[in-house]
């Protein structure tokens, strides 16, 4: 099954370019385009995409608010922030709002398809610099419940950047079971995204910050 992608960017040239480029990868399917955050939220409800590629500086509703709303209302939709130099600080806002990763608007377009696929597989990809800053800026969840040994294993694997399928293979359990464990972990930690769960794992020393692969 192809990964269904929603593009949200207020620049027509960027939307068109992204649609063209993503279409060259047979594993991806662009299902819609939104010109602002509000439209992105509406289309996310209508189209139920796997991944939203979200520009952060947009009129009407910005990418951070849209990310936050989508993650709250549609937890199975992953959001990847799409940023350029001016929006550096917005990246952290997006991660806090529940984005699973971020991609830079530069010429390394190969990373684009890989990033979308990783997000669809639930892989958390963060550079150590971003992790360090997020640890500083994102407050620890106020009340967490203790995890079972199995949930801890899942969290460790998740924080190491593994997809659900990889976790399933490593722990020799069904992918569906992994998904259930992840939901439990998120609920127990009181967070809304795998990114935030991974941060928790780093903060509590479960894993060390991963290699630099934004």
């Amino acid at each position, binding site marked *: 099954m192809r990964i269904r992608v929603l593009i949200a960017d207020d620049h027509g040239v960027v939307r068109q370019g992204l649609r*063209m480029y993503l279409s060259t990868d047979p594993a991806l399917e662009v299902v819609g385009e939104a010109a602002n955050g509000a439209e992105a939220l509406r289309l996310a409800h209508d189209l139920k995409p796997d991944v939203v590629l979200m520009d952060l500086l947009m009129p009407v509703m910005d990418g951070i608010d849209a990310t936050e709303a989508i993650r709250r209302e549609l937890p199975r939709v992953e959001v990847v922030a799409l940023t350029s130099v001016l929006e550096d600080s917005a990246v952290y806002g997006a991660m806090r709002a529940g984005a699973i990763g971020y991609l830079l608007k530069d010429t390394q377009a190969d990373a684009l398809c890989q990033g979308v696929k990783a997000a669809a597989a639930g892989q958390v990809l963060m550079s150590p610099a971003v992790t360090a800053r997020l640890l500083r800026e994102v407050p620890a969840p106020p009340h967490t419940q203790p995890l079972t040994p199995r949930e801890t294993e899942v969290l460790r694997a998740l924080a190491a950047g593994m997809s659900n399928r990889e976790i399933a293979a490593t722990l020799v359990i069904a992918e569906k079971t992994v998904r259930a464990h992840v939901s439990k972990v998120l609920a127990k930690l009181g967070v809304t995204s795998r990114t935030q769960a991974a941060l928790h794992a780093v903060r509590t020393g479960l894993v060390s910050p991963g290699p630099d692969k934004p």
Partner: protein
Amino acid sequence: MGKLIDDGTPLRVLIVEDSEDDTLLILRELRRSGFAPVADRVESPEALRAALEGGQWDAVICDYAMPRLDGLAALAILAATALDLPFLVVSGAIGEEVAVGAMKAGAHDYVMKDNLARLGPAMRRELKEAEVRRAKRRAEAENVELYQETRRQAHRLAALLEIGQDVSATLHLPSVLLRIATHARELLQADDSDVYLLEADGRTLRPIVSLGNYAEETLAMSLELGRGIVGSIAQSGVAELVDHAQNDPRAVQVPGSPPEPYGIMSAPLRYRGQLLGAISVGRLGDRETFRPADLQFLQSLARQAAIAIENARLYGQARRLAALEERQRLARDLHDSVSQVLYGVGLGARTAHAWLAGADIPAELKAGLEEPLDFLLSLVEEGLAEMRVLILELRPDLLERQGLVAALAQQATAARVRHKLDVHTAFCPEPVLPFLVKEALYRIAQESLTNAAMHAQAGRLEIRLAPEDEGIALEVQDDGVGFDPEREHPGRLGLRSMRERAAELGGHLEIVSSPGQGARVRAWVPLDPTPDGPGPGQTRASMPS
């Protein structure tokens, strides 16, 4: 010369008389009338002159006809002294005409020796008259003084008003300060008048305006806060009037000015408790000293000057803020339009590339199409790198957010794509530094790179950033034509400004180069640029001119 002391009204009387006996008679008569006379007797013009100049007298009693001096001559001598003393003629028989002549010449009364009983009452009356005349003169003098004071006040008020209007209407600080100094010099009858501004270092008073004999010497000499009379007064924060300043232990001789007596007044320029500078006026030579009212006026001028400086600072700040906002808007516009378009172009080229890779077409055609697409992509990469550097230059706050290392890396990339240089970098992890230090290092790197690219004909560049000795060192080395760093290089940007940037932060910058040997620019700044006292990390009043 007999001196007689007795009870009664004290009376210092000078008796011009050639007869000892008559003098005794006169004194006896005075005592009888209730005086306690203290007397000198003279009988020559020289003795009279000397007595009038040397003593304190209440009255003169003069015989009329004497061998060496007559009454009229004695009157003339008294008139020449400008003393206003009762002058009574006591003589033997003289005619009516002579008596009238004497009165006309300035004698107040005449008493016949055979009618000496009149002397006491006449003396009392004339003493009273003289007292009245003195009181009147005092009142007149006071009126004149009052009038002059009023006029002075009016002039000073007018000057303050004019300066006040100037301060609110003129934003050109030097001309306002020049006007204030000019008024200070004229209205305080000073020989010189100087205005100093406190430099950004918070320690140096720089002369901005100097009027007077030693203006050039004064303008050439900055004062350290706390040094010299003006520096000490500025530091103390309290205006002061210093007479005989040449003897003051705080005094510093202006080089080239002769050691002569002078008086000085100085007031600190303060706004809301913050020292901004100082104003001072001086009088050279043995002139009248300044008065407390003068100091008050100088303080009024100082207040106006402080407001003018603050106004200029606020105006400069507003202007800089407007420029900053304009730059941020420009940066956003560039980002919104050009960067996004470039990104779109890149995606289009990538798409074409992707399709081409899977296309079933002759290899020759494929290669022919790949070349322009690669060209397009390299142009996009160059354009995006340029945009990032440009935006960083327009928005220095991004340096703070992205960090110095990321910013230097962008510089390196821009140098690669822009100038086709072989750039090598070695950066330590992002150091913890105040923003000003990061900005200075960034600008130094920028200027070094520009010099290397534009003037050195360099092919290879190395940029290094590394911690060193409680500080951080930035090094930019090129393999270009080199130059003599001791000489002026009009084309090369900011060798001096680079040195100044480093020095301002307590660091230093060295340039090692010689013709043909490439160049190495090496800047070192301490991690904590403010070990003591206010420094670049603190708020400071910057001084637009």
